[in-house]
């Protein structure tokens, strides 16, 4: 384990920036946001960013390819290019876990080369959460906010940042900052972990359990009468989907620039009325069905296909941002029965 004094964070960021494009969470008037570090940007103290870091690997919108169309002829232009090495500092335990969930979609056969390209070049520098919020429930999904995963794992104490490499990519990054960091024992980090564990146990959602859900529970929950009340106020907007670190549905669209056609992909939401609409019909006619799809996917369908892994990391963004304050916590409590009081 290495450490660096907090008053030398800029030196650390500068050293990382020599080899990587570095992104850190900074404060804006609309909450914390990952921004490219140029030297001026200050590290945010906020617990987490408003938008999740999924953008780094699965951006809101990205060009997939271009087409040149002349008369009856079409030329397909592969616009992909090798991405440069980048590092994302300050990723929280929940969000680090979200990358595993996205990996199982995008890196399964056939591999999504756009995602893989960024994933291979991205280094995740995680940061333990010293002040988990009332909306946090990562422990429900077996995530430990005190000990995040990541290529490099960091703990920030009152005066120092402790860093430990956990992967080959992490080792490489740490070797780039070896001159300015020093060896440290784990005493301060161990003490902090203990403090965080105590805090996690006291969170309002500490008892929330996902045990009622998972592989093979489709028939148990699909026709549950509770969906009607849970979805009655849903506006059908995409806020939950778009702030969610694990939602990854997308749309592919063409955009005619006047000089050619760009085929791009953008985030899409199963909450939208046109998500499954076909010329021939619409299998999900009401908001109840769309609402149910989102939560069934996270709590039942995804785990069925992925060894019981849930497609939620308990980051609490949907809890904070849903315009009508309906969210996965309320769904789990209502459907999960006695286990969730």
């Amino acid at each position: 384990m290495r450490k660096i004094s907090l008053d030398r964070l800029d030196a650390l960021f500068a050293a990382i920036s020599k080899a990587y494009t570095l992104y850190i969470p900074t404060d804006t008037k609309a909450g914390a946001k990952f921004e490219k570090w140029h030297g001026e940007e200050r590290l945010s103290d906020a617990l987490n960013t408003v938008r999740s870091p999924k953008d780094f690997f699965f951006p809101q919108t990205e060009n997939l390819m271009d087409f040149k169309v002349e008369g009856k002829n079409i030329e397909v232009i592969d616009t992909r290019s090798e991405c440069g090495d980048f590092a994302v500092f300050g990723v929280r335990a929940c969000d680090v876990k979200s990358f595993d969930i996205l990996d199982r979609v995008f890196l399964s056969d056939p591999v999504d080369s756009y995602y893989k390209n960024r994933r291979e070049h991205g280094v995740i520098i995680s940061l333990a959460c010293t002040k988990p919020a009332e909306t946090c429930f990562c422990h429900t999904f077996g995530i430990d906010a005190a000990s995040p995963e990541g290529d490099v794992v960091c703990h920030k104490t009152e005066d120092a940042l402790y860093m430990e490499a956990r992967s080959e990519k992490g080792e490489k990054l740490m070797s780039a900052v070896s001159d300015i960091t020093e060896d440290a024992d784990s005493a301060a980090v161990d003490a902090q972990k203990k403090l965080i564990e105590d805090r996690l146990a006291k969170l309002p959602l500490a008892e929330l359990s996902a045990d009622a859900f998972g592989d093979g529970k489709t028939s148990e929950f699909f026709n549950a009468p509770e969906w009607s009340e849970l979805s009655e106020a849903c506006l059908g907007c995409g806020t939950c989907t778009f702030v969610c670190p694990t939602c990854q549905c997308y749309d592919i669209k063409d955009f005619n620039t006047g000089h050619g056609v760009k085929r791009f992909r953008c985030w899409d939401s199963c909450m939208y009325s046109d998500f499954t609409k076909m010329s021939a019909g619409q299998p999900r006619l009401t908001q109840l069905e769309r609402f149910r799809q989102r939560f069934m996917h996270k709590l039942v369908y995804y785990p069925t296909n992925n060894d019981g892994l849930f497609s939620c990391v308990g980051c609490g963004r949907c809890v904070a941002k849903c315009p009508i304050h309906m969210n996965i916590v309320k769904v789990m409590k209502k459907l999960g029965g006695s286990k969730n009081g």
Partner: protein
Amino acid sequence: MQEIKREVLVNKAKELLSDGTVDRVLGWKRGEFDYDVTPGVFRSAEELDSGFVWGDFCGANFSKYLVKETAKGEGRVLVFLKPCDTYSFNQLLTEHRFDREKVYALGVPCNGMLDISRIKESAEGIVSVCEEDGKVTADTLYDGKKTFDRDALLPDRCSNCKSKKHVAYDELLGSDGEVLDSGRFDEVEKLEKMTADERFAFWQGELSRCIRCNACRDVCPACTCEKCVFDNPDSGVENKAAADSFEEKMFHIIRAFHVAGRCTDCGECSRVCPQHIPLHLLNRKFIKDIDEFYGEYQAGAEVGSRAPVVNYTTDDIEPSQAVERGEQNA
């Protein structure tokens, strides 16, 4: 703190349920925390007792919910309307969006609703929020109790409240207020005084945060089209996300044009924006221009009034005058 207590609302709702005036109640349901109440339908006294809340975080405007709720069946629905909600209520009636006979509207006074994000700006881990004598106290996980002036926690739509007067109701709980002389156009004036480049930079900064979640549109009581132009693949503007940086501005500008003259300035768009984009300022610019061009007009102030933008008179401003004014501001 709200003037009327929860019990008064609950008792009134129970009374109207039991005498058969209504068969369901549109109200706010208790959440996990004090601030995360959810709109919902109550069908019995028991449901009201256990789940109904009324307080400083009941900001949702129920008017739009009436469009779907009244289409569900024959029975009447009870709805609670804050003064600003009543303007949306009237505007929807003007546009024939729901059947008035199927609604029993109870007017409730409003002292302004709090914006939890203002508390969260300076307090982490909010366990509970309570209020006494104009002071709001948040109990937090790590910093103990933090106290705020109530006024400092009001969103713009409430600190610049346009009216405490209910313009529609079947029955009023508590006292009615007056139309207020608010400073709601102050921010718009600041924007008007900017140079075109400054103003462009301002909106670029704000709108570049847009994630196209459509929450603003989906909550807006003026957006009740069966099929929105942005969901129509044949419209040419359907794109869900920005194809280039200009597209998202088009979304908000087209929307502002579409609701011009119909927007009552209820402020729901800004309340729900997950990226805190001050979308209401676009609408207020239209309202201010309409006031200046055609004389003061408040959408929803009365049922059946025709917005100046859809009502030709010989006194209307000449297009050339508008162009001239635009050029002066450029």
